[in-house]
């Protein structure tokens, strides 16, 4: 049913429709409204049976999920920012043990300096933890991706992160079609774990693996994750045929046919970018948007094909790899065909808005050769402040 509701509330309602048996919760902004919403639903008896565990930390939250999932329960948690980092030790355990946990990451910057606002630093810092990572471009897609995430996780026996922009999506009130229970039940059958911890029928999950087999285990895990690209696409197609709307998948191209330049991005800037592209097309400029929904596994071949014939790609990075450059931009650069010139820009760190005016100017700058390809360009950088700080560093004499 179409409702005008907050993104967090829509996600909480949707997670409840997926009937998790265990929810482990530790609140952190901007994820808080999601776990509060689930708490309300459990308290009211609208989500039952469900064990709602208020744990002592994010480490506790993911550890509880690992235990519950290994015992055969459909399991969910949510976090943000340093909360995700506090789970870091347990993240590769969840994936390595093949536990289909679903987690929302309400994307937020990493401190210090402390900053509660949105960028992609948290999720991208854990890109190699062996989880699938899906990025929502809108609240509707956030809802839809959660339904898909449970299906994918259980089909693959792998954990899935659904990443949605903190505040920009979690706290936005919009019209959202939250599906009905019957349709979700039809799409998402009851969880049938491949194996589970049962005192009456003991098995070991997570035995030690020595040098003799460890490489093989990792090789197979890497193969398994890459093979999941097909499942991500299939589940999105099944979702579309069941729910009647396209959502998720690997990539989301918008007006990329014959484009001179495409903006490549993840998350909520994609809607803003689509409006910018419509404006540019009205002015006779052939621009497009290429949204990346599935970041892990990385859709190498699909992205390569999508960029074929497009002379310029501008990657909007909402996180950086300090000491190296960009994260998403490097992935795109390594993937793009040699005929595509890749521009790499940083925008929207720590809640700085990515505006229509800013994206439009960016496209024009690239088309007019004002942006040097190959270099990482910080859009909207206050160069006066940066220069004065750099000059001050020079002046400081080291005793």
């Amino acid at each position, binding site marked *: 049913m179409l409702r005008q509701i907050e993104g967090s509330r829509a996600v909480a309602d949707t997670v409840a429709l997926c009937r998790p048996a265990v929810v482990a919760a530790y609140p952190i902004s901007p994820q808080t409204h999601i776990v509060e919403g689930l708490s309300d639903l459990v308290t009211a008896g609208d989500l039952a049976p469900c064990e709602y565990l208020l744990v002592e930390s994010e480490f506790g939250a993911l550890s509880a999920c690992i235990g519950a999932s290994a015992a055969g329960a459909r399991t969910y948690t949510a976090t943000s920012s340093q909360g995700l980092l506090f789970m870091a030790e347990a993240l590769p355990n969840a994936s390595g043990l093949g536990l289909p946990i679903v987690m929302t990451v309400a994307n937020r910057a990493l401190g210090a300096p402390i900053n509660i606002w949105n960028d992609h630093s948290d999720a991208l810092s854990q890109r190699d933890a062996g989880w699938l990572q899906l990025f929502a471009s809108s609240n509707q897609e956030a809802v839809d991706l959660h339904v898909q995430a449970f299906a994918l996780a259980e089909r693959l026996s792998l954990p899935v992160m659904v990443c949605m922009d903190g505040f920009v999506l979690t706290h936005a009130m*919009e019209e959202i079609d939250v599906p009905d229970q019957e349709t979700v039940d039809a799409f998402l059958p009851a969880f049938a774990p491949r194996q589970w911890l049962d005192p009456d029928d003991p098995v070991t999950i997570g035995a030690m693996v020595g040098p003799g087999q460890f490489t093989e285990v990792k090789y197979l895990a890497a193969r398994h994750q890459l093979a999941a690209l097909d499942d991500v696409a299939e589940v999105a197609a099944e979702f579309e045929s069941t729910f009647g709307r396209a959502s998720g998948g690997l990539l989301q191209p918008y007006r990329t046919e014959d484009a001179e330049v495409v903006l490549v991005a993840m998350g909520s800037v994609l809607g803003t970018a689509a*409006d910018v592209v419509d404006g540019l097309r009205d002015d006779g400029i052939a621009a497009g948007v290429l949204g990346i929904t599935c970041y892990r596994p990385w859709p190498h071949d699909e992205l390569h094909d999508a960029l074929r014939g497009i002379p310029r790609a501008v990657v909007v990075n909402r996180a950086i790899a300090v000491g190296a450059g960009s994260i998403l931009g490097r992935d795109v650069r390594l993937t793009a065909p040699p005929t595509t010139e890749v521009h790499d820009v940083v925008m929207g760190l720590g809640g700085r808005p990515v505006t229509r005016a800013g994206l439009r100017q960016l496209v024009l700058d690239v088309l007019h050769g004002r942006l040097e390809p190959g270099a990482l360009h910080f859009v909207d950088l206050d160069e006066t402040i940066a220069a004065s700080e750099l000059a001050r560093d020079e002046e400081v004499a080291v005793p």
Partner: protein
Amino acid sequence: MTLDVRIHGRGGQGVVTAAELLSLAAFDQGLHAQALPSFGSERTGAPVVAFCRIDERPIRSHDPVDHPSLVVLQDPTLLRAGGVLDGLADDGVVVVNSSRTPAELADAGLHLGPRQRLVTVPATELSRELLGRPLPNTALLGAVAAVTGVVSLDAVRGAIRQRFASRPDTVVAANVRLAEEAHAVVIDEEAQRHAQTD
């Protein structure tokens, strides 16, 4: 029919709630709407901004409203801080919570462009009277309905009833009356202004 709204107020005045109520009213009228907060560290009394977009077409952008067609000021002292009128459309409207007239505010230094319009509504006084507390929120929404016509007073009433469904009936009724009173004040002001211009 589009309306890009920026609401300025202070922590505790319900700035975010105002944007949400406006989006609910628009949704109930069959329009597309989006309420977006611009969170700072939330402290009572600190300046807070929220946005609301209303459109006949689905809304895709998630950037802040930087060229509003309507600015709502829940606290007139924010005028002193500056920036509240930034980007206001040439034919934009400003609704200010104030017991002073637009002419008095103009004399006090609030200057608008030739096609921009200033509307005042004594929302704090009205809310003290009807709610017993200075919560100008729902009064300003009544004023917005009167000024823009994009959302109807009826839709504002519906939004208040939905949003405050868990509150006591008396609170809901008082807020509905507050919106109605403010709506009437603005309709009256506009009628007087038209009479003067004619």
